[in-house]
């Protein structure tokens, strides 16, 4: 794996060509949908001419293919957007480019970011960086695997209910989901607007700190963004009060995962932090809340794909209702349809109060319980995923089993809390395990500083 500083001060052109060669050498992992070679080389030239400079001068990166970017289509890994060439770029991509970074390709994902394995892609699954018979995790699987394979030092992803943290855990890299609203979502394919959060993968805490400084802040093109609050304190963490969330290390979590996470927790203690156990019973209901609220928002956000203005249009249409219905049926993957239809169900009259309203009330309880925990603790910890990377195909026909993989990461999403996945070690089978660190809203810097301190402890 590589870090950002490995690329600084080097030839931008060499950086780009090396990264593209690595993409080609690692084609079998299917982590990249499309290489943006033409634009990458043009930008490298501009950097070498001195026209562009910045903190990420000449550093190659990869972006999940649900971020709009120039030079080729933004597919969201769907047939629906297979040929969609965006006339604009996402704000996050623009911010990185302003600092001299160079996007070299678009990463695979579950279509429209619906999934936890990157098997729901219209372009085939991404394979795990440690074991090609296992899943990458998802939905940002291509971004995670690209960083884990050392193709680039960092990659952008989106996390609606664990889509950065879970694949980070499965591939042994850092996965950062900041506070909701910290990074602009402008130009990112919308999934569930009340939890969609932009974040990234890195190989170390220092790079995460640098990217938070660059990417966060208000964007007039995304009215849900908040003023920059990120206060880098990576060298000065101090003693923290850490709560181990009992429910995040219970029966549903594999022993091999628990062992690795518990070892990390012991290190936190021996480093001098106060570590105690805490119970937040409501988190057990978070996955049920999530699979009401998120499909509801998905059904609304995906209504725009109608085959009229952009995206896929079925060839077999006779009239306007075929145009909508058949274009959507042929353009969406099966998991997209499941979520759209669950959303239609929970929002339909007669069921609204029993499902959608109920879930939003439960969400209030969840937020209150988290707030209570943060009166006592600076950081909450637990496993990221209940298992290590599972086998390809293992959960694909069992949607509820697949959803279970996200049961420990959706609580922070529903509450808009910053949550990061930090590589904690390898299981007895040699598969990576991440530990999840969660803080109060806008306390993202504490998480990254803590991870940085533990990196120094050789966990």
């Amino acid at each position, binding site marked *: 794996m590589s870090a950002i500083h490995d690329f600084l001060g080097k030839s931008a052109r060499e950086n780009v060509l090396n990264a593209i060669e690595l993409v080609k050498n690692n084609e079998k992992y299917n982590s990249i949908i499309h290489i943006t070679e033409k634009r990458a080389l043009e930008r490298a030239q501009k950097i070498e001419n001195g026209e562009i400079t910045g903190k990420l001068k000449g550093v190659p990166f990869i972006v999940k293919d649900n971020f709009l970017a120039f030079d080729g289509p933004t597919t969201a890994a769907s047939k629906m957007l297979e040929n969609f060439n965006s006339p604009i770029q996402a704000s996050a991509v623009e911010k990185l480019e302003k600092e001299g970074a160079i996007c070299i390709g678009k990463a695979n994902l579950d279509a429209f970011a619906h999934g936890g394995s990157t098997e729901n892609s219209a372009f085939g699954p991404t394979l795990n960086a440690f074991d090609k018979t296992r899943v990458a995790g998802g939905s940002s699987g291509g971004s995670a695997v690209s960083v884990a394979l050392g193709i680039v030092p960092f990659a952008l992803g989106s996390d609606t209910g664990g889509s950065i943290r879970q694949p980070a855990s499965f591939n042994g890299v850092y996965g950062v989901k900041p506070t909701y609203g910290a990074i602009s979502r402008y130009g990112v394919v919308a999934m569930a607007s009340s939890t969609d959060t932009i974040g990234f993968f890195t190989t170390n805490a220092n790079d995460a700190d640098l990217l938070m400084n660059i990417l966060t802040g208000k964007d007039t093109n995304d009215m849900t963004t908040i003023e920059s609050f990120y206060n880098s304190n990576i060298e000065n963490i101090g003693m923290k009060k850490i709560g181990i969330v009992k429910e995040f290390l219970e029966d549903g979590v594999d022993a091999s995962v628990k062992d690795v996470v518990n070892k990390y927790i012991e290190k936190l203690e021996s480093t001098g932090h106060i570590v105690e156990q805490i119970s937040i019973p409501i988190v057990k209901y978070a*996955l049920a809340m999530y699979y009401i609220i998120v499909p509801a928002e998905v059904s609304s956000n995906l*209504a725009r794909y109608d085959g009229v203005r952009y995206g896929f249009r079925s060839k077999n249409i006779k009239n306007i209702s075929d145009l909508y219905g058949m274009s959507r049926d042929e353009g969406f993957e099966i998991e997209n*349809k*499941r979520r759209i239809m669950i959303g239609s169900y929970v929002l339909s009259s007669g069921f609204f109060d029993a499902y959608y309203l109920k*879930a939003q*009330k439960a969400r*209030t309880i969840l937020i209150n319980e988290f707030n209570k925990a943060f009166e006592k603790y600076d950081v909450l910890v637990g496993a990221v995923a209940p298992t290590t990377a599972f086998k390809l195909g293992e959960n694909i026909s069992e949607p509820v089993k697949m959803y279970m993989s996200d049961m420990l990461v959706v609580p922070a999403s529903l509450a808009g809390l910053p949550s990061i996945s930090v590589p904690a070690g390898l299981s007895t089978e040699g598969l990576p395990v991440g530990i999840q660190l969660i803080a109060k809203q806008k306390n993202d810097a504490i998480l990254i500083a803590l991870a940085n301190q533990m990196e120094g402890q050789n966990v």
Partner: protein
Amino acid sequence: MDSISISDVQHLAQLSNLSLSHDEAESLRTDLDKILKYIESLKELDTDGIEPTYQVTDLQNVYRDDEVIESGVEKSDLLKLAPDSNGDSIIVPKVL
């Protein structure tokens, strides 16, 4: 909860503007049934007297000056994205 029927699935497909094939509807019936049974578990939770949360920032009514901001995107750029257009309008089958 009763299991959902194939006609429930067809109704949801209609609400969702999805023209499902028969086989697809049948497999979705099984999947949706399992998902709905899972989310039913929320019914155990007492939420009486609790206010719902629809968003997690404390932002409300974010305004900006009422000025045109140039996006740099031209009408022709957008028309190029349409599956069928005549250079000035998007073409769809006859509606009426």
